[in-house]
């Protein structure tokens, strides 16, 4: 009895893969049969008894509970990467509909969908693995291309008016549609004042791979909440998605450092578009250039640069 338990014991807490086998075949002594009959190994999920063997059929950690219960822990508490550590990204399941562990945010640049393909989690994008308690994992990657995702606020450019909707370019693979009635205080008689070429700050209500994305400029209560047409003057430019996320973080250092130089208005869209307006054209251009360059700088370099600009401009 000890030998069998011993064999399991040495594997407790270890990662096992389907195909691993524990054999009960003891050496051919007289006691052979007697020993097998007396042990009762209870196989939990992930283990399967097959005559004299116990086969592992799920990948995970072998766990043990007294006196004789063994199982494979294959919940996502323990991450069993098929390949790599923190560099290559996480795979979205092929069908995309089953087992989606939503990693919040959902835009593919910063937060990728984690899905179980069987019991493996595969990585599909290169980047840094991030973790949030208790069991949220995603890949932080530096991507330039925006993929629309529901709930995100973006800066769009109105391209066309057709019937009851506006066609808005958000930088994705197709244009999004924005209805006339999706503005605060808009009715069929009272149409919003939106022209082709205007900038709109709006949110996605529908954004998935199968349908045309749809935008709205009101929140669920019917209030504009900062959304709508803007940008009478000022400058619109494009940055990478990583920088945009850093700007939108609650205590963003970059924004704090920039505020010290001179006052300006800033609108940040999650599609990588940033709109800036300062008192003079020169100041606007300075802010735009600073934002574009601080993408690849460490915080030290950035602070020295901002300090130099602040002294220079004063």
């Amino acid at each position: 009895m000890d030998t069998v338990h011993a064999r399991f014991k040495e594997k407790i807490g270890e990662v096992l893969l389907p195909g691993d086998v524990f054999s009960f075949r003891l050496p051919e002594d007289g006691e052979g049969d007697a020993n097998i009959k007396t042990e009762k190994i209870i196989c939990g999920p992930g283990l399967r008894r097959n005559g004299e063997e116990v086969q592992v059929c799920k990948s995970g950690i072998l766990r043990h509970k007294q006196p004789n219960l063994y199982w494979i822990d294959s919940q996502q508490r323990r991450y069993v990467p098929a390949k790599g550590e923190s560099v290559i990204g996480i795979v979205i399941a092929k069908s995309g509909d089953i087992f989606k562990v939503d990693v919040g945010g959902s835009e593919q640049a910063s937060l990728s969908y984690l899905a179980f393909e069987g019991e493996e989690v595969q990585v599909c994008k290169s980047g840094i693995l991030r973790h949030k308690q208790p069991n949220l994992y995603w890949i932080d990657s530096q991507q330039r291309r925006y993929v629309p995702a529901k709930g995100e606020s973006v800066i769009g450019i109105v391209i066309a008016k057709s019937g009851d909707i506006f066609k808005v370019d958000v930088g994705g693979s197709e244009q999004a549609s924005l209805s006339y009635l999706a503005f605060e205080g808009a009715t069929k008689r009272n149409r919003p004042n939106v022209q082709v070429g205007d900038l709109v700050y709006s949110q996605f209500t529908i954004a998935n791979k199968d349908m045309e994305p749809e935008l709205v400029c009101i929140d669920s209560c019917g209030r504009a909440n900062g959304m709508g047409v803007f940008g009478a003057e000022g400058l619109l430019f494009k940055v990478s998605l990583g920088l945009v996320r850093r700007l939108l973080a609650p205590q963003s250092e970059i924004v704090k450092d920039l505020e010290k130089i001179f006052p300006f208005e800033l609108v940040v869209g999650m599609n990588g578009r940033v709109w800036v307006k300062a008192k003079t054209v020169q100041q606007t251009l300075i802010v735009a250039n600073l934002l574009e360059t601080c993408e690849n700088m460490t915080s030290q370099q950035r602070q020295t640069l901002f300090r130099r600009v602040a002294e220079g401009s004063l």
Partner: protein
Amino acid sequence: MMELEQSCSVLREFGSEQSLLSRPDGSSTFVQGDTSILAGVYGPAEVKVSKEIYDRATVEVLIQPKMGLPSVRERAREQCVRETCEAALLLTLHPRSSLTVILQVVHDDGSLLSCCLNAACMALMDAGLPMSLLFCGVTCAISKEGQIITDPSAQQEKESRALLTFAIDSVERSVLMSSTSGSFSVHELQQCIAVSQKASQQIFQFYRDSVKRRYSKIQ
């Protein structure tokens, strides 16, 4: 077996740079010895209705030669690269979109197709397109005496009797695509595949190191 030991997978010195172009969503350059390729990736972007596929992305590859207009030779190479990319990318995530890979030959000193594959893979990683595996290209030349040379230069290619290029995947080291010319035996083919799989190790390690280095600055 003797031949396998002699022809150890020695690759020429290679290097790469990512995100060097400002317009494309992902770009890279890959240099193997003197052969150099510049790659740019756009996607997921709009696709013409005639080319769109309802449940997957459409992959387009364009290879621009150093001189002249693209000809049938480039079209053949484009097909090889496109099929490899389609095997590696998760196309169902972007239906009715297009993923375009554009490769510019900066200098050709042998092993052109494998350099194109490597540059394409680095550019796809740079663009953040979801992939299920990475791929790399390895070229083998069989000399007239039967010796296998990996990553041949243009001169070595000219003097060889057969030229084989394989695209190897990173997960199982299996062959995703093969493109061969010249005459060789089945035994030589298997040897070349074995040599290429061994050489691909170096290239995948290089991918990992370069991406790690790139992200270490941002950490």
